């Protein structure tokens, strides 16, 4: 005749341990997916390196993303734009050959979208560029990325925000800079 609750708990112990282990496994699985099969830095059809272009050669962002200052969308450079330079430059590299093949077949390059906002968010580059906000504020230190990836907090914490783009980033910035109607939902959602 056991009255105390303890023996009953003892019976449950092994089961409890199993559950704990399973939870641990859950975490591991999640982390491994995030690390090894990431969607925040996918393989692009052409291994275009922002590090080389924006970093080493210091080409200004808006040289290619021409519309950033006058349109909601920054715009992807047309293939002709790439060819404009790469007719002469580094024509022998395999990746440039690949680019050429696209050009000759008059095919667009199917870049994979990395910085993707939900459809119900209507962000406009124009206003932000005109407000002289650094591209890096949201896109991270693009000039250091060989393959473009969604901005994330680096070890030294250079980029102040976290792996995925979250609404509080927008809000925080809007609050800091006292944007007018900066926290009105209809400023971005319509």
């Amino acid at each position: 005749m056991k009255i105390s609750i303890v023996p009953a708990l003892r019976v449950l112990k092994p089961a409890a341990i199993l559950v704990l282990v399973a939870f641990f496994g859950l975490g591991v699985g999640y982390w491994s997916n995030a690390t090894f099969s990431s969607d925040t830095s996918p393989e692009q059809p052409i291994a275009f390196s922002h590090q080389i272009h924006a970093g080493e050669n210091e080409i200004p962002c808006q040289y290619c993303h021409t519309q950033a200052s006058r349109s909601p969308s920054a715009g992807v450079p047309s293939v002709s734009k790439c060819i404009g330079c790469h007719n002469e430059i580094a024509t022998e590299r395999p990746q440039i050959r690949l680019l050429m093949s696209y050009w000759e077949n008059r095919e667009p390059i199917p870049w994979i979208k990395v910085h993707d906002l939900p459809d119900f968010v209507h962000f406009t580059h124009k206003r932000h560029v005109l407000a002289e906000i650094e591209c890096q504020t949201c896109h991270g230190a693009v000039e250091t990325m060989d393959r473009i990836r969604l901005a994330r907090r680096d070890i030294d914490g250079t980029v102040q925000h976290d792996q995925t783009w979250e609404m509080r980033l927008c809000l925080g910035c809007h609050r800091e800079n006292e944007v007018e109607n900066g926290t009105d939902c209809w400023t971005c959602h319509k």
Partner: protein
Amino acid sequence: MSLFSRFMDGWRKYRKPGYYDEFDYHWTMTVDLDSCTGCEACMTACQAENNIPLVGEEELAKGREIQWIRIERYWEGEYPNAKLNFLPMMCQHCDAAPCETVCPVSATYHNQDGLNTQIYNRCVGTRSCAVYCPYEVRYFNYYNHHWDSPLDQQLNPDVSIRGKGVMEKCTFCIQRIREAKDLAKDDGRRRVRDGEVQPACVQSCPTKALIFGDRKDTESQVYQSMNNPRAYKVLDELNTDSSVVYLKKVDA
């Protein structure tokens, strides 16, 4: 600011209809019932501008139409003296809106421009706002709508498509208002000029029965128009303090 004072501040705001000491703009529409011919050009304009889904006959038979602006008909008298009056009815953007108090997640609230907002991605679909709205201008998405290709190529990229389980309603064409403000900024202006922004319905109205503008600008057409002696508000007795002013039909 201490918690208490913050609370008191919140309380004061809360007591104020619309909780703003002063609106930034106060967008207002006037509808001249004397000029409205019920041609419904406004309805098509609205559908085209705001990606309003095609519902289909079966759903319409169930009474599930989606019309951000609709024309109401009221017959008067009998033959041969029958008269038909038209009443364009869209979201009245009430400054004391019943729908705003009831939404549990604040998907609809009053913004600093005197507009009654509807944030689709925040909506959980309790539909209580539609119950509380005496004008019945809030429409619910009972399922995911679809456009036969290539009709979808017409959809306006500036307006979100509403999925199933979401409430929607007239926004006074917020995308146009935003665009106008954007242009004003480009010109280094603080404010939008009168007539610079018009909702799709106002823009298309063949008889100019609809006028839209900022009530705070005393020079604006809408200000003059709403101070017309014929001005009245539909269901004014409910004290919704709506931002759509109707001009009485002249019975001559």
